[in-house]
């Protein structure tokens, strides 16, 4: 008896996530490029700024949907733990960076760096959690 998610589910997940991931990365860099190279009016700036978080929201919705379909609760717990730690790490970096920026000790953090930082933290957290529970 196969346990959820089946290979088909995983394939479906990858098929859904891969294009959304490309959209997320594209939106990040499009937003960063627009802010760097154009002087946007306030309403347009708000719309452009929304592109990136909305695409991330879509990605997280897909990941959440996949986790809710998975019957292997231990694996779900690992993934949720990793996502929580990665979010905490990203928040910590952004708060620290903002604090240092106040005193001009660091340069501006490019907008497009948020997602790569989260991804790095997610990879590190995933490896650490797997090591601990192995």
């Amino acid at each position, binding site marked *: *008896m*196969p*346990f*959820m998610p089946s290979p088909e589910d995983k394939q479906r997940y990858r098929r859904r996530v891969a294009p959304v991931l490309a959209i997320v990365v594209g939106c990040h860099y499009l937003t960063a490029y627009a802010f760097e190279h154009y002087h946007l009016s306030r309403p347009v700036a708000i719309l452009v700024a929304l592109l990136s978080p909305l695409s991330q929201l879509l990605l997280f919705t897909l990941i959440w949907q996949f986790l809710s379909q998975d*019957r*292997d*609760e*231990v*694996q779900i*717990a690992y993934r949720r733990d990793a996502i929580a730690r990665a979010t905490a790490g990203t928040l910590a970096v952004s708060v620290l960076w903002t604090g240092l920026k106040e005193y001009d000790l660091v340069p501006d953090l490019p907008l497009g760096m948020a997602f790569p930082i989260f991804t790095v933290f997610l990879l590190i957290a995933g490896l650490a959690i797997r090591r*601990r*529970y*192995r």
Partner: protein
Amino acid sequence: MKNRLRVLRAERGWSQADLAERLEVSRQSVNAIETGKYDPSLPLAFRIARLFDARIEEIFIDEA
């Protein structure tokens, strides 16, 4: 929380992979539960109990 999962599994001659297949979870999950690194939810604990035809408290030992 301690448990008798490894003993019960060994009595039946099942590998972790066999038990994982019966419980519809991954082998890593069986290992995490056996070694006490993860305490299963009530639905999974009931599935385990049904599989071994035992009561939950006969498999999972409350150390409190």
